[in-house]
C-alpha cells in the first residue's frame, strides 16, 4: 500500500467510525456504533470496546445488583445460560471478581510516543486547533467573522498567515510548510512518523483524540448544506493543519531536535474490528445483558399473550398519532376517558416527504425522516410577523463604548429579568415553542399548481400524489373502513428553554422538527374532495362528512394546538367541543403520570396544579430536564391497538398500528419495519450507548456546556465537541435493546425484513430484537441466529391494576408491566 492509498484508507475508516452527529439545529438520533452494525450485537460491542475503549455494557455491579433485587430473574438467567446453568460458571457469573479494565487499541501508538518523548503533544495542539476550526465553521457567534475568500479551510488559513501581523506558529518551519503549495499530507506525516508503516495508526490515534471536531468536520464535508452559511472544509485539511501544528509544537518544545516514531522504533497496530480477544468478561456481560433484557421482555410478552382482540366497531372519533413512545401514555389516557375513541400510530411525518419553508425564511427545513431526499416543497404563506431580537445576544453588549453605556443601563434591567425568570418563569425569548415552527394562521401550499423552484423542487403535491400519500398511510395502519366523523391527525413537538439540544426533543420522523406542517398537509389532502373521490375508488370507505383535523401535541407542556378549525363542518362543531374537553382531561392525566419522574415537583398537589408545574418546565431557564424525552424506550409494538391496549407499558413503547389481516403479503409491514428499524432502533441505541458510557458516547452532564459556533457544545472553552446525549436525558433510561413485537405470521415477517438488506441487518445482527406473534396460533416466535424459533413465556399472567395514576403516585422508579382493568373498550 502506498502512502497515498494508506491515507485514503484511513479516511474511509474514519468516515465510518467518527461520530456522525449533525450541527445542533438538526438533531437526528442514530446508532452511535453504526460502524459495527455488520457484526452481531455482542461481537460489535466487544470490538468497539477493545478498539476504542468505550464502555459498551453496564458495569458488572449493575447487573449483579439487579439480580439481587430480582430485576433479573433466576429462571431467565438459567435459560440464557442453557447448559452452563448447572456448572460453576453460574457461580462465577454472580460472585467472581473480574478485571473490567479496558485498554483501547486506538490511541496506543501515539500514547507510547508521548511517553517516550516525555511531552504531551495534544494538550499543546488541541486548544489552538479547536479554536481555528470552530472559528472557521462558526455560524454566528463571533462578531468579526473569520475571513474567508471563497476558498476552503486551508486557503483561508494560508491567507491569514500571509497577511497577519503575527504568525499562527511559533517557529519558521511550520510556517514555510504551510505556505508551500505543493506540500501534501504525506510529506507532513513523513516528518512526524519517519516511516509510512505508521500512517494509518497515527492518523486514527490523532483524530480519535478529538472525535467531536473530526466528526463535525466530516459531517460538514459530506453534507455542506447542513450549515446555513457554507464553509468548505474536509477532514484531510483538518489533519493537514493538525500535523503542521504538531510539527510546530515539537520544534518549539525540543528546539527542532526531536525523535519520530520511527526513531523510537515503536510498534504499530492494524485496525481490524474482526480481530477480537478472548477476554471472558465480554461473554459474561453478554449473558447478563441478555438475562436483563429478557426478564423485561418476558413480562411484556406475558402481557401480550392472552389478549382477546375486541372487534373494531364504529367509533365517534379516531386519532392518528406519531409512533413516538411519548404518545404511548397519552393514547392510553384518551382511550380510558373517551369510550368511543380509537387511536392509531404511524411515523409522525404522516407520509409527507417534503421540505418546508416558512414565510420570510431564507432556508428550508426537511420535515421527513433524515435519510429521505424529498423532491417537494411546502411553502408557508402568512401575514408577516415581526420577530424581535434579544438585546442580550447582540454584538453591542460586547462593544467598548456601547457596552459601556449598556452596562450602566441595561445591566440593571438584566438583574430584574433574572429575578423574574427565577420567581415567575413565563414564556420568553429563550423559549423554543413547538408552535413557532409554523404560523398558526398561515396557509400552506399543499396542492401543487405545477410550480417548480429553480433548484428543481415541486411546490406542493398533485392530486395523484396526495391520493397515494393518504391511501398508503391509511392502508399501512389498517384504517380502511369504519371512519369516524372526526379523525384527528396528532403530530407532536416540544417546547423548552435555555436548551441547546432542543432539536432532539421534536419529532424524529420529521428530522427533529415539530410535525405540525405534516399534520396540516395530511389533513388537507385527506379532506380534499378530489382525493376523497379517488380514495373511494381505491376502496376506502370514507363518509363525505368525515373531517380530518390537524393537531399538534406539545410533549413537554401536554397541550394540544388545533389547526384549520374553520374547515370543520358546522354539524361536527359540538362533537369537536366535546372531544376537546376529553383531550384536556387526558392531557392533564398524562402530565400527572409524567410528573412522578420530576422529583422536584412533589406529588401532593391537585391534578391541575401538577399539570401547571409540568408546563412551567418548558419556560424555566433553570430546568435542565424540560421533559425526559425518549428515556426508558425499549419496545416497539407493530399490531392492532387491541393487541397491546390494556397493558401499562410506562411510556416505553413505540406503537405502530398494523392489521395483519389486511396485509397477507407483508408489503405494508415491510414499509413499517423499514422505518422502525432506523428511526426507533436509532433512538434506542443512542440512548443505550449514551447511558452505558455517558463520558465517551454521550455528552456528559449539560450543566457546564458551552456553545461553540452554534454547531455543538463543549465543556469549557478548550474542550472537544460533545456528541451523544447529555446525562440529564439518559439518567432514568434502562439500557435495553429495542424489542419489536409484530402481530403477524412469522413467515410473512421473515420475508418482509429480508427484502431490504439494511433493515435485515438490524434484526439479523440482533441490534434490535424481533418477536413475531402468530395471531392464529397465539404463539410467539423470536428471531435468533438467523431465523424464527418458538418462544415460551416464563411469567404466568401479570399483576392487575385498576387505577394506574394512584399506583404510580409518589414513585419515580421504572414501573413493571401491569395489566390495566376497567379500561373502556
Amino acid at each position, binding site marked *: 500500500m502506498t502512502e497515498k492509498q494508506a491515507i485514503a484508507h484511513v479516511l474511509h475508516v474514519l468516515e465510518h467510525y467518527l461520530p456522525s452527529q449533525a450541527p445542533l*439545529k438538526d438533531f437526528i438520533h442514530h446508532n452511535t456504533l453504526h460502524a459495527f452494525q455488520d457484526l452481531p450485537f455482542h461481537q460489535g460491542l466487544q470490538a468497539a470496546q477493545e478498539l476504542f*475503549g468505550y464502555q459498551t455494557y453496564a458495569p458488572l455491579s449493575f447487573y449483579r445488583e439487579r439480580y439481587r433485587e430480582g430485576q433479573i430473574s433466576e429462571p431467565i438467567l438459567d435459560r440464557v445460560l442453557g447448559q452452563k446453568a448447572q456448572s460453576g460458571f453460574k457461580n462465577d457469573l454472580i460472585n467472581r471478581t473480574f478485571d473490567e479494565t*479496558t485498554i483501547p487499541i486506538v490511541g496506543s501508538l501515539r500514547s507510547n510516543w508521548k511517553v517516550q518523548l516525555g511531552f504531551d503533544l*495534544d*494538550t499543546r495542539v488541541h486548544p489552538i486547533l479547536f479554536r481555528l476550526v470552530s472559528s472557521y465553521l462558526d*455560524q*454566528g*457567534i*463571533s*462578531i468579526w*467573522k*473569520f475571513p474567508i475568500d471563497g476558498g476552503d479551510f486551508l486557503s483561508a488559513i494560508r491567507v*491569514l498567515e500571509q*497577511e*497577519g*501581523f*503575527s*504568525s*499562527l506558529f511559533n517557529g519558521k518551519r511550520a510556517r514555510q510548510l504551510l505556505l508551500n503549495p505543493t506540500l501534501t499530507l504525506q510529506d507532513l506525516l513523513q516528518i512526524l512518523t519517519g516511516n509510512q508503516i505508521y500512517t494509518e495508526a497515527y492518523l486514527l490515534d490523532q483524530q480519535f*483524540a478529538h472525535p*467531536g471536531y473530526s466528526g463535525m468536520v466530516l459531517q460538514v464535508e459530506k453534507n455542506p448544506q447542513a450549515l*446555513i452559511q457554507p464553509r468548505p472544509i474536509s477532514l484531510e485539511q483538518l489533519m493537514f493543519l493538525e500535523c503542521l501544528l504538531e510539527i510546530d509544537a515539537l520544534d518549539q518544545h525540543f528546539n527542532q531536535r526531536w525523535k519520530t516514531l520511527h526513531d523510537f522504533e515503536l510498534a504499530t497496530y492494524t485496525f481490524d474490528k474482526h480481530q477480537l480477544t478472548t477476554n471472558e468478561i465480554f461473554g459474561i456481560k453478554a449473558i447478563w445483558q441478555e438475562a436483563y433484557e429478557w426478564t423485561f421482555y418476558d413480562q411484556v410478552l406475558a402481557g401480550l399473550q392472552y389478549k382477546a382482540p375486541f372487534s373494531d366497531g364504529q367509533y365517534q372519533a379516531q386519532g392518528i398519532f406519531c409512533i413516538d413512545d411519548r404518545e404511548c401514555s397519552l393514547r392510553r389516557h384518551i382511550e380510558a376517558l373517551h369510550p368511543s375513541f380509537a387511536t392509531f400510530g404511524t411515523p409522525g411525518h404522516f407520509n409527507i416527504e417534503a421540505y418546508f419553508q416558512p414565510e420570510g425564511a*431564507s432556508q428550508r427545513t426537511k420535515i421527513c425522516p433524515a435519510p429521505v431526499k424529498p423532491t417537494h416543497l411546502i411553502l408557508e404563506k402568512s401575514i408577516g410577523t415581526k*420577530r424581535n*431580537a434579544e438585546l*442580550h*445576544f447582540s*454584538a453591542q*453588549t460586547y462593544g467598548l463604548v456601547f457596552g459601556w453605556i449598556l452596562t*450602566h443601563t441595561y*445591566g*440593571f434591567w*438584566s*438583574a430584574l*429579568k*433574572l429575578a423574574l425568570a*427565577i420567581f415567575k418563569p413565563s414564556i420568553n425569548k429563550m423559549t423554543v415553542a413547538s408552535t413557532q415552527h409554523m404560523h398558526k394562521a398561515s396557509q400552506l401550499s399543499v396542492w401543487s399548481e405545477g410550480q417548480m423552484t429553480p433548484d428543481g423542487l415541486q411546490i406542493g403535491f398533485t392530486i395523484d400524489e396526495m391520493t397515494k400519500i393518504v391511501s398508503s398511510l391509511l392502508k399501512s395502519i389498517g384504517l380502511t373502513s369504519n371512519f369516524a366523523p372526526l379523525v384527528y391527525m396528532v403530530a407532536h413537538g416540544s417546547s423548552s428553554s435555555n*436548551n441547546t439540544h*432542543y432539536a432532539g426533543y421534536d419529532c424524529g420522523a420529521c428530522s427533529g422538527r415539530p410535525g405540525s406542517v405534516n399534520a396540516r398537509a395530511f389533513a388537507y389532502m385527506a379532506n380534499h374532495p378530489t382525493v376523497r373521490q379517488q380514495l373511494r375508488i381505491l376502496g376506502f370507505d370514507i363518509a363525505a362528512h368525515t373531517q380530518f383535523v390537524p393537531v399538534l401535541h406539545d410533549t413537554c407542556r401536554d397541550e394540544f394546538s388545533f389547526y384549520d378549525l374553520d374547515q370543520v363542518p358546522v354539524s361536527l362543531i359540538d362533537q369537536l367541543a366535546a372531544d376537546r374537553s376529553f383531550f384536556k382531561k387526558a392531557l392533564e392525566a398524562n402530565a400527572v403520570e409524567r410528573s412522578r419522574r420530576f*422529583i*422536584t415537583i412533589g406529588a401532593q398537589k391537585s391534578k391541575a396544579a401538577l399539570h401547571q408545574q409540568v408546563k412551567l418546565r418548558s419556560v*424555566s*431557564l433553570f430546568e435542565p430536564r424540560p421533559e425526559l424525552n425518549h428515556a426508558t424506550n425499549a419496545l416497539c409494538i407493530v399490531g392492532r391497538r387491541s393487541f397491546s391496549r390494556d397493558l401499562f407499558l410506562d411510556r416505553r413503547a413505540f406503537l405502530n398500528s398494523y392489521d395483519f389481516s389486511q396485509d397477507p403479503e407483508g408489503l405494508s409491514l415491510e414499509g413499517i419495519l423499514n422505518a422502525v428499524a432506523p428511526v426507533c432502533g436509532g433512538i434506542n441505541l443512542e440512548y443505550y450507548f449514551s447511558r452505558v458510557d455517558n*463520558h*465517551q458516547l454521550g455528552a456528559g*452532564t449539560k*450543566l*457546564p*456546556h*458551552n*456553545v461553540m*459556533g*452554534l454547531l455543538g457544545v*463543549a*465543556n*469549557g*472553552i*478548550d*474542550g*472537544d465537541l460533545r456528541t451523544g446525549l447529555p446525562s440529564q436525558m439518559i439518567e432514568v433510561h434502562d439500557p435495553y435493546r429495542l424489542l419489536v413485537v409484530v402481530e403477524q405470521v412469522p413467515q410473512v415477517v421473515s420475508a418482509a425484513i429480508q427484502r431490504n438488506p439494511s433493515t435485515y441487518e438490524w434484526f439479523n445482527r440482533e441490534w434490535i430484537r424481533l418477536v413475531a406473534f402468530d395471531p392464529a396460533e397465539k404463539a410467539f416466535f423470536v428471531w435468533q441466529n438467523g431465523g424464527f424459533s418458538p418462544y415460551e413465556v416464563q411469567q404466568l399472567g401479570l399483576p392487575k391494576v385498576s387505577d394506574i395514576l394512584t399506583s404510580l403516585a409518589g414513585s419515580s422508579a421504572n414501573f413493571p408491566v401491569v395489566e390495566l382493568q376497567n379500561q373502556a373498550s
Partner: protein
Amino acid sequence: MSTISFIHAYIGLPLFAFFASLLLKKRQESALSILSYSTAGLQLGLVLIYGFFWLKGGSNPTQFKELSVYSSENYEFFIDFLVDKLTLVFAFLGASLSFLITIYSRYYLHREEGYKRFFNTILFFNLGYTLIIFSGNMETLFIGWEILGVSSFLLIAFYRERLLPVKNALKVFSVYRIGDIGIILAMWLLHHLWHANVTFTEMNANVSMNHHLSNATGIGLLIAFLFYVSAAAKSAQLPFSSWLPRAMEGPTPSSAIFYGSMSVHIGAFLMLRTMHFWEQQVVFKIFLIAAGLLTALIASAISRVQSSIKSQIAYASIAQIGLIFVEIAFGWDNLALMHILGNAFLRTYQLLISPSIVSHKIREQLYQNSSPLELKDSYWQQTIRRLYILNLKEWNLDLLLYRSIWNPLKRIGRGWKILNFQYVFWVMAVVLIVGIVLRLNEAQFSAQLLHQLPFFFAFWGFLIAVKAFTERDSVRKSLTLIMFNHVSISLALSFNEHFDNAHHAWYLSGIVLSWAIGYLLLTRMRKTEWISLDNFYGHIYEYPKTGFVFLMVCLGLSGFPITPSFVGEDLIFSHIHLSQVGLAFFTAFSLVINGLATMRIYARVFLGPHIKTYHQIAKRSS
C-alpha cells in the same frame, strides 16, 4: 441595628451555613439548597435594612477591631472590620446575585453528582467574599482573599473526573497566587511604614499618609503597583486576562456568578479600597489609566473573534472592567460602582442564558439572510483581518505567562537532579545543623556574613520550593520539600532578628503537623495504589475521604488560614527589614510557589481522569 451586630450577623451567616452544610448528607438536596439561599437571602435583607438606616443616619463609615489573634510588644495580628459605601454596594451585589443564583442552582443542579460539594463551595466562597468586602485591614482582607482562591480552585475543578477542568483550576490558582505576591509584599511594606499592622482607615487618612510617605514616595509607588498586581490578577486585567475564559469549567450558574460577577470584580474592589492611598501618585494614576485602556481595547478585540459564547462574554466583561479601572483612576468612584453593578448583572444574566443562543440565532438567521461580514474593504477591516490570528491566540497572553514564569521555574527545578528522595533528609539535616551551629555561634562570625545568611537560607528555601513544584516523580519527596521550605525560611529569619521562639512555633506548628498527616496518608495509599506526579491519577474516585483529608493537609501546608501558621507567616514577615528587598521577595515567592506545589500534588494524585479504566472515563480532550 447597630453596625457591630450587623457585621456579626452578616459574616456569621455564611460561616455558620458553611459548617452546617458540611454536616448534611449528600442526598439532602433540599436542605443544602435551602441553607444556601436562605443565607444569601438573609444577607440581602440585612444589607437592605442596614443600608436604609445607614443612608438616613448620614452615611458614615464605621471601623472597629473585632479580635486580636496574637499580640506582642511591637506586633499585633488582629481582625478588623470596616463598613462604608463601598462595602455596602459590594454586599448588595454579592447578596442579591448569590440569592438568585442559589435558587437557580437548586433546580439546575438537581441529581448532579457533587450537589453537596457545589453548595459547600458556594458557601465557602460567600464567606471569603464577605470577609474581603468587610475587612478593615490587610490581614483580614488576606484571609478572605485566600478563601476566594481556594474556593475558586474547587469550583473550577468541580468536574474533577475530567482533565481540562483540573488543569484550568490549577492554571487559575497559579495566577491568583502570583497576585498574592502583591498583597504579601504590600502588607510587609505597610507594616514597616507604620511600624504596626495598619487599618484601611488609617492608611487612607491623608494626615498619616503624608507623615509616613513624606520620606518614602518610592515605597508608596511600589505599594500602589503591588496593589495593582493583586487587583489585575483577580480582575483578569493585562497581562493575566487569559485565565477568565478558562475558569468557565464549572456548572453554568457558578461560572455566571463567580467569573461573571463577584470574583472578577474583586480586583476593582481592592483598587477602590486603597484609592486614597495612591490618589496622590500621579505616575501610578497614569499607569492605571493606560493599563485599563489597553486591557479594554485588547480584551474587546479578543472578544470579537470568539466563536464560543462563554469566552466571548468573559472577554467583554474584562474589557468593561478595564474601563472601570480607568474610572477608578480618575477618582470617579460612584460611576465605577454603578459600572460594576451593571456589568456584574449583565454578564451574569448573559452567561445564564447562553445556551439559548443556539435557538435564538438559528431562528434569527432563518428569517434574515445575514451574509458573513466581508473583511476586505476598508483600512479598518484590513487591520481587523491582520490582527485576526493575534486575537484568536489571545495576544499570546497564556504563552507569555508560561515563558516568563513557569518555564524558568521548571528550568531551575529540573536543573539539579541529584536530590533523590533518600538524600533529601540528609541534605536538609546538614543544612539545618549548619544553620543551627551558625546560629548558636553567631558571635564568632563577622557582621558581614551574618547579614548575608538570612538571604542565603531564604534563597535555599526558594530553591527547595521550586524543586518541590517541579518534581515529576515522588509525591512524598515533593511534600517533604514543601515542609523543608518553611523550615528554611524560619531558619533564615532567625538570623535576622532575635525574636521570640514562639514566633517560630506559631509558624511551623501547623506546617509540620500537616506534613506529618499528609506523609502518613500517602504512605498508606502507596501500599495499594500507584501514585506519582507525572500524571493526573484521579484517585478521588476510590478514595473520596482520603482526598478530603489530604486537601486539608495541603491547605495547612500552604499556610492557609486553618492553622496558626497563617498568623506565623505574617509574624515572620514583620521581621524582614525594609532594606532586605531580596529577602522579602524570595520569601514571598517561596510562599507562593509552596501554595502552588501543594495544590499541584492534590490535583495530580486525586483529581483528573481516573487511572483505572474499569469504569466510564472521560476523554482527555473532553
